C-alpha cells in the first residue's frame, strides 16, 4: 500500500510518501500506526500523540478503528485547517 503523510506529520516522519507491505496481522488503521511507530524516531515522534492524528483510507476520512482490508492508499495528517 501507499502511505501518505501531510503537514507536520510529514515533517516529523521526514518523508511525504512510502510504499509498504505491512504484515497480515496489521488489520486496522490503528494497528498500522502501531507498526509504523517502531520504524524509526521520525515515525515515533509523528505518532506520539494519536489524538492529534487523522486518517484517510483511499481518500475517505476514517476513524482509527477502521479496517485496512483492500486499502491501496492510507494517509495520516493533523486536523484540517483550510478555508
Amino acid at each position, binding site marked *: 500500500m501507499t502511505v*501518505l503523510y*501531510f*503537514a*507536520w506529520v510529514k515533517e516529523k516522519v521526514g518523508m511525504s510518501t512510502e510504499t509498504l507491505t505491512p504484515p497480515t496481522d496489521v488489520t486496522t488503521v490503528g494497528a498500522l500506526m502501531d507498526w509504523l511507530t517502531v520504524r524509526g524516531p521520525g515515525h515515533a515522534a509523528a505518532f506520539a500523540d494519536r489524538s492529534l492524528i487523522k486518517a*484517510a483510507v483511499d*481518500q*475517505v*476520512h476514517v476513524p482509527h478503528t477502521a479496517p485496512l482490508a483492500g486499502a491501496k492508499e492510507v*494517509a495520516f*495528517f*493533523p*486536523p*484540517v*485547517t*483550510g*478555508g
Partner: protein
Amino acid sequence: MTSQTAVRVQREAFDPGMEVGDFCRHNAMSGGVATFVGQMRDFRGDTRESGDTITAMTLEHYPGMAERQLEGLITEAKSRWPLDDVRVIHRFGTLQPGEPIVLVAVAAAHRSEAFEACAFLMDWLKTEAPFWKKESTAAGGAWVDARAADEDKAERWRR
C-alpha cells in the same frame, strides 16, 4: 445550469469579482446567489493588536482527496437544499496577506437556501477538506492548529 467545473483546487490566484460575475451570468435565472470569500489575514491570534504579524502562508493539500471531499460536500448540500448551482475554489501553495484563499458561491431560487447552503459548505469545508495552513512570522513557520469553534460550527449541521 452551468457547464463550468464546480470545484477548482488551484495554485493560481483568482479574482473574486470576476468569479462571482461569471457565476451570476451562468445562473442568471436563479433568484439568489450567496457567496463567501475567505482572505488571508496578516495577523495570528484573535486580534491584529494582540497577535503576531504573518508575512506569508503556505497551504498544503491532499491532491485528489481535496477535490473529492469538496465534490462530496456539494453533493450533500444539494441533497439538503434545492440549489441551482455551486462553485467552490480553494487555493494551495504560497499566499500573501490579503489574497483570497477560498470562494464558495451558491445559486438558488430564493435567498434562504442560498445563504444556508453557503454557510453549510464553509463550515464543513473547514473541518472536512484536507488543507493545512502554515503561517510564516518573524519567528519562523508554524502549522495552524485546528479550532474547537470550527468543530462546533460544523456540528450544528449534523443530522
